[in-house]
Every structure is written in structure tokens, then in C-alpha cells.
């Protein structure tokens, strides 16, 4: 059953990923990105990372993408008019991305990855919290300062006249 769910969620994520690339309207791209994030949250649940799935939906789909949509509406972007597609750029992109995918495939074939899930996986919120506040205390504090700095930066960047 979980195999079927994996294929459903990953197909949804990949199809929405392709639709992000090929949408003319930026609002459509944003909507497909929200769907991709939701599909990835489903994959997180299949990987038994329940807290991360909830955080992904709340923070990424619920805050970051809403911010994106606010900015798209604020800028009032029209549908992208058809400029001439530069064939050389697309060919270069295909070559670059194809190379990277080939490297990845070669890496996957060459290694012996354990296809078994590790048996007793402790991944409750309590265990994550214990890890966060003991081993990862310094990154936690630094991230809080980072969020403060980001807020100050955003306010400063959106001032009309810097006096």
C-alpha cells in the first residue's frame, strides 16, 4: 500500500514540477509549486518524518508560497509575452541538466544502497526536540538571529527613500 502511495505522490510531484516550468502565467507556476510542496509533504509522511511534513506544509506551503503570491499580485505581472525562445540557451540547459542527471544515475548504479528500512526508527517530535536543544543548540540560536537579521533587511530594502 505504501508503495502505491509513493508512486502516486512522486508522480504528482514530478508532474507539477514540469508544469511549473511550462506555465506562462506566474500565478499558475506558484500554484503548481504549492502542489509540489504538498506532494513532498506526503512523501515525508511515507518516510515517517511526521513533524517535518507538518512543518513543510505550515511553513513552506503556508507562509513562503503565500509570500510569493503576495509579491506576484503586488507586482501585477501580466502573462509573459512570447519573446523569441533562444534555441542556444535551451540547448545549453539540456546539455547541463543532462550531464548532471547522468552523474547522478552513475552514482546510484555504482553504490550498494541498503534497500531495507532501518528497523526501529525513533523519529517522534520528542526525539527531534531532544536533539535540537542539546546537540544543535548553537545552530538553533544562530538561526533565530538570522531570522531577526532577515526581518530587519526586508524592512530596510522596502523603504522608498533611505534616509
Amino acid at each position: 500500500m505504501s508503495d502505491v502511495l509513493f508512486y502516486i505522490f512522486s508522480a504528482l510531484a514530478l508532474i507539477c514540477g514540469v508544469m511549473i516550468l511550462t506555465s506562462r502565467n506566474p500565478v499558475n507556476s506558484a500554484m503548481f509549486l504549492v502542489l509540489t510542496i504538498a506532494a513532498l509533504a506526503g512523501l515525508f509522511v511515507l518516510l515517517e518524518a511526521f513533524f517535518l511534513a507538518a512543518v513543510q506544509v505550515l511553513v513552506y506551503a503556508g507562509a513562503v508560497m503565500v509570500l510569493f503570491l503576495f509579491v506576484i499580485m503586488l507586482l501585477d505581472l501580466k502573462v509573459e509575452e512570447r519573446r523569441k525562445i533562444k534555441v542556444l540557451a535551451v540547448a545549453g540547459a539540456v546539455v547541463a541538466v543532462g550531464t548532471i542527471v547522468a552523474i547522478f544515475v552513475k552514482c546510484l548504479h555504482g553504490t550498494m544502497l541498503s534497500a531495507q528500512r532501518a528497523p526501529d526508527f525513533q523519529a517522534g517530535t520528542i526525539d527531534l526536540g531532544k536533539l535540537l536543544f542539546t546537540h544543535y543548540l548553537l545552530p538553533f540560536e544562530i538561526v533565530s538571529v538570522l531570522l531577526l537579521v532577515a526581518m530587519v533587511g526586508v524592512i530596510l530594502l522596502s523603504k522608498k527613500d533611505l534616509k
Partner: protein
Amino acid sequence: MHVGLQHYLAVSFLLFALGLFGVIVRRNVLVIYMCLELMLNAANLALVAFSRFNNNLDGQMLVFFTITVAAAEVAVGLALIVALYRKRQTAHVEDLTTMKL
């Protein structure tokens, strides 16, 4: 075939490749930024998959911090894009060819 680690990694790098293709090919600044977020999400998926299959919670911790830092980065990046749009009145990458204000 039973779903193993390599399936999750395959999905992760296909999403990453799609995001990279979008960053190179699309010419709207906001769509480029969205494809960048797609690449970040693909990396998060790989981290969570490794964390599950190796019984190590450090991967999930790193995803926690990555999501937080990505949220801060999106806020700052969008503020920059809005400021740029106010100056240049365009969201097309081909018009933003000079660094002169």
C-alpha cells in the same frame, strides 16, 4: 519492486534537475526564484530519505534548519525583487542587463 532508498533519491534528483532546467531556461525573475525553491525542496527530500534509511536523525535536523533558512532567504529575495521592479518596471531577466541603478 519494493520501494527503497534509490527510488526516493531518483525522485529527488529528477526534481532537482527540473528546478535547474527552470532556472536556466525561464526568463521571469519570480519563476526563476520558484524553481530555485524547487531545488531546495529536492535536497530536503534526499536528506529525509537518507535519515530514514540510516536511522539517523541528523538529516531531519538539517531539513528543519534548511526550511527555516529558506523562508528567511525567500523574504529577503522577494524584497530585493520588489525593489528592483520599482526601479526598472520590468520582471524580465533579459531587461536587467546592467548593474547601474
